[in-house]
């Protein structure tokens, strides 16, 4: 456990001894880590290291055979993606799991599901609290659309947009519900250097503006070093390093497993 944490500050997310395997193939073995409130934590590691699996455990897509997740002081042996979302864990997906036949605006509005308080009947007949809620949701959505500069695409069907913009829509859909913890699975995959810088700036701004705690997966070490407050390195399903960027950069095990391949 790193010693550089402010004393007495509670971790927003704790992962205790998580082990996950698929039909006997180990994806994660005995991984523990903590993420402090307000932090940007990056998960790095070679392909197949278990980064996405770990993210999927945190929001309940995968159910680990062993271990538990503690979010906001509550212990979960099993959490479902629905529960996770309702409790304020938002996420994006590696392959933009967007609602492709919906417009950008509808995707973002769908992201507000966890805040919906109106009943089915109010919805259908546009009565009761429905109007007020619609207005409020539209205002929230517009704010996020403006923040991510998606205005000109708001009415466009998602499947017709380029991949880079879809990535922003995916982020917008997660961000609009004001999650306490945001999981980003390779938000910069397939982007060129300029786009990566832009996305990195956005993630950093989300963190400082909305005070959102972020766990992200990213391969570009240069970007990660500049963005993350903490880096966790996975290799073959085990954690091999955990600390501030400069600590991790100099860790011999990490250089061997990961950085060595890149900078050779």
């Amino acid at each position: 456990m790193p010693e550089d944490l402010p004393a007495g500050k509670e971790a927003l997310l704790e992962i205790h001894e998580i082990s996950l395997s698929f039909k006997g193939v180990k994806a994660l073995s005995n991984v523990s880590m903590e993420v402090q409130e307000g932090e940007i934590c990056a998960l790095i590691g070679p392909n197949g290291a278990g980064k996405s699996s770990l993210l999927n455990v945190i929001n309940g897509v995968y159910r680990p055979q062993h271990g538990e997740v503690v979010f906001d002081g509550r212990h979960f042996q099993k959490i479902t993606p629905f529960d996770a979302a309702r409790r304020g864990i938002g996420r994006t997906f590696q392959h933009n799991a967007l609602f492709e036949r919906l417009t950008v605006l509808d995707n973002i509005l769908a992201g507000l599901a966890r805040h919906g308080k109106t009943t089915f009947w109010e919805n259908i007949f546009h009565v009761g609290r429905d109007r007020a809620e619609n207005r409020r949701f539209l205002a929230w959505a517009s704010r996020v659309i403006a923040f991510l500069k998606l205005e000109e695409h708001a009415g466009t069907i998602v499947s017709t947009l380029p991949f880079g913009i879809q990535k922003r829509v995916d982020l917008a859909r997660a961000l609009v519900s004001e999650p306490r913890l945001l999981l980003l699975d390779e938000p910069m995959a397939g982007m060129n250097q300029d786009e990566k810088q832009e996305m990195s700036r956005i993630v950093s701004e989300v963190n400082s503006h909305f005070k959102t705690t972020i766990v992200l997966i990213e391969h570009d070490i240069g970007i990660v070093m500049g963005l993350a407050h903490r880096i966790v390195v996975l290799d073959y399903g085990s954690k091999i390093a955990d600390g501030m960027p400069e600590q991790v950069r100099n860790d011999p095990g990490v250089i061997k497993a990961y950085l060595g391949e890149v900078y050779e």
Partner: protein
Amino acid sequence: MFLEVLLGGLLAGVMYSSVALGFVLIYKASGVFNFAQGSMVLFTALMYVTFVEAGIPFWIALLIVMIVMVVCAVLIERMMLRPMANRDPMVLFVATLGLSFMIEGIAQLAMGTDVHILELGVADGTLQIGDLWLSEFDLFATAMAVLMVVVISFVFNTTRIGISLRAVADDVLAAQSIGIKLPQVWRIVWSVAGFVALAAGLLWGARQGVQFSLTLSALKALPVLIIGGFSSMIGAIVAGLLVGATESLADFYLGPIFRGSVSAWFAYILAVFFLLIKPAGLFGEREIERV
């Protein structure tokens, strides 16, 4: 003459569309071919006719059947869909197969196997428009189908619950991951599919009597679904009309050659033809597998 056969066929096609619509709804929202849709057509029609024969006013009978279908939807979600969430669609398909046997069994156990005559109060006279003679009942059926599509489209496209429905149809896992209540969406979709089954059951029942063969309406919906695409409401309508029209034209022009009616099998030939040239159907989407 051609025009009259064509129009008659189109109107008959509306009946196919009405059944296919129920399949599309459930396929869209849960990716499952609901084998029980045909049984639901029988079940709802049989319930309605039983209540009416017992002297209950038709609109109360309609209301009761609709409530029963909502209860069914709640039970199906709780007992079948929830335990099988995120399983292979094939598993769910087999479950709906079981469900269809259960519904048929319960329907016949509770309400018997007699053939009932169903009067909807719509005169099945003919209406002359210019040179064309059209069936009043067919026009009524068309109006019903159009109304159903309009109402369903309205709910899907203009309400927030509609956004959730379409979201679930697109990506179930992503929908769960943003906090959409999957059980609620499923209950709504199965309820609406129940109402659609009721409408189809009344139309078909009024035509051929309420009897066990109503479950076979599902078999007529199959070629419609293949041609229109499993996930498109528009596809269900267009393909229903297409099947109806080509069927009656084929009957009229090819019937004499085959010395008998060809409408029993013509739709399937048409479906096979579409499978060869456009496997996803007219309006369906081809699945893109990410590797």
